[in-house]
């Protein structure tokens, strides 16, 4: 099964980069030729190009929540993201809409999807490091990803 591990975020926006950091930490651990680890700053339609050709995808990203559970690790399925008014912008088209669009266009997209998110603070100033609480969650999130591969 061809598996994609996709870390998302912005490397100069402190805790927003946590998805990239988790993916980076997995690169050395995941050497199986069927598993590809990618760090990307893209979103929306840009995701479509990356997802094509894989059977399974595990996306790692940051999440800001109302209850501010910083460092908490969340696990979502695609169904948790309602398509709704999916076109906020060309890159803001959400994941559910991206998959719906890819499906309509007959593209080969992953059948198995997991989204692992790490809770981050509401404020994300410019910076190249995660805050300590988020930093501590990186190895934990990486373990969750490893357990999801092939399942």
């Amino acid at each position: 099964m061809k598996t994609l591990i996709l870390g998302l975020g912005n490397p100069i926006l402190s805790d927003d980069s946590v998805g990239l950091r988790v993916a980076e930490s997995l690169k050395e651990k995941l050497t199986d030729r069927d598993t590809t680890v990618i760090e990307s700053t893209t979103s929306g339609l840009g995701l479509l190009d990356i997802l094509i050709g894989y059977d399974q995808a595990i996306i790692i990203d940051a999440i800001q929540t109302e209850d501010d559970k910083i460092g908490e690790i969340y696990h979502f399925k695609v169904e948790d993201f309602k398509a709704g008014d999916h076109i906020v912008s060309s890159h803001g088209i959400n994941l559910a809409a991206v998959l719906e669009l890819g499906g309509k266009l007959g593209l080969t997209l992953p059948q198995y999807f997991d989204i692992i998110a790490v809770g981050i603070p509401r404020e994300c100033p410019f910076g190249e490091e995660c805050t300590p609480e988020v930093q501590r969650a990186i190895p934990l999130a990486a373990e969750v990803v490893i357990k999801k591969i092939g399942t």
Partner: protein
Amino acid sequence: MKKIVIDPLTRLEGHGRIDIFLTDEGDVANAYLRVPELRGFEKFCEDRPVEELPRITSRICGVCSLAHHIASVKAADAVFHVEPPPAAKKIRELSYCAHMCHSHIAHFYVLAAPDFVLGPTSDRAQRNIFGLIGKVGLEIGKEVIKHRAYAQDIQQAIGGKAIGAVNGLPGGVSKAITEDERRDFEAKAKSMVEFSKLSLKLFDDIVLKNKEYVDLILSDAYTMKSYYMGLVDSENKVNFYDGDVRVVDADGNEVAKFKPASYLDYIAEHVEPWTYLKFPFLKKVGWKGLVEGQDNGIYRVAPLGRLNAADGMATPLAQAEYQRMYSTLGGKPVHHTLAMHWARLIELQYAAERLLELSQDPGITDPDVRVIPTATPDEGVGIIEAPRGTLIHHYQTDEKGIVEKVNLIVATVNNNAAMCIGIKKAAQAFIKRGEEVSEGILNMIEMVYRAYDPCIACASHSLPGQFPLEVVIYNAKGEEIRRLSRNV
């Protein structure tokens, strides 16, 4: 006084909010586009080696990443007083033409076309790319995705990454192009030229052959007289990568033409207390408030601004369409904001043709792609045409090349005043006293700024997806009476 706010602005890159204030009678008194700003980006750049900035500024925005990278590396060239070799300039321009294709395709098919194919006041649930594909067919949808991917492939092959290029260095680029890569780019460029023709034909069929839409484009609600700005080559043709900045007035007369380094002699910025975004204007004309016309220094950039500020396009198919646009819309300059969509597709045609020209250029595979800087670094300005308009990066460093000061004027900010005026005009035209302000009406107001393809992420340095967007309407007492918040 009543007040209306549009938040979120659907299909807008990043975050923005429109506030609409009504009088006691229910007419529109005023409308404002307001944008938050994540402060501190310029500070974040300081105390770093200037050669790092092309890789840092490109992180401002995932959509406009390459525009910032190229503007930044041109500024770094200037800081080090170094002229890149011809092949390096061609490689930069080639990847940049691919970026233009990538951006303009997304704007037309995802943001612009649904309003025309489905109708500006049609069901909002249908007025998107899914509705578009439902009308124009899956095959066109596949072509859109394929050609976006082609453009992305070229950017990735040259830049090292699809987003966040790393190849630009002061004095050139880090890697030459191989013959295999050149052949691949050439094949993709040929396909892109055909796809651009198809896109223009679609625009013709959907918009120009529909009298209702042509009337809408020509209507006063979507028309605004202003100055126009854009980069031009030595023959005053549109150029995205290099050249002088040219400014024409509302009658099309050239009023300024300047080198990047002297931009501060021509552009000043006005500040208003109700928004973080500044309002750039022409220094020699002056700032007279948010009013249109020749007496005010407000200018417009982006596709229509570029085409109005130039004498033509440098490639044949784009030039033919350029002439057709001006003869159809009543001569130059065109002041109709929705013509921005036509201008954008003409630029897509140009970008594709230029991509092909560069991929067939015998010098493009020359291995000499870098001049090592030797002069003492001090100060430099880099200007390019981002998809959304003129983009200025200005850096000052110490004698070791450590950044002391950064000033960015991003494309969207250049259009800030024009967007505010345009939104107010549309709001006044479409919101009628005593009538309910429908979602369709609000969408027709949103169509003003959508035409500019504003990137609020770039303008605010806030990065996409950070904030929700909305439209809010207030009554004469300042009380909120309607809020349109779309799912974000």
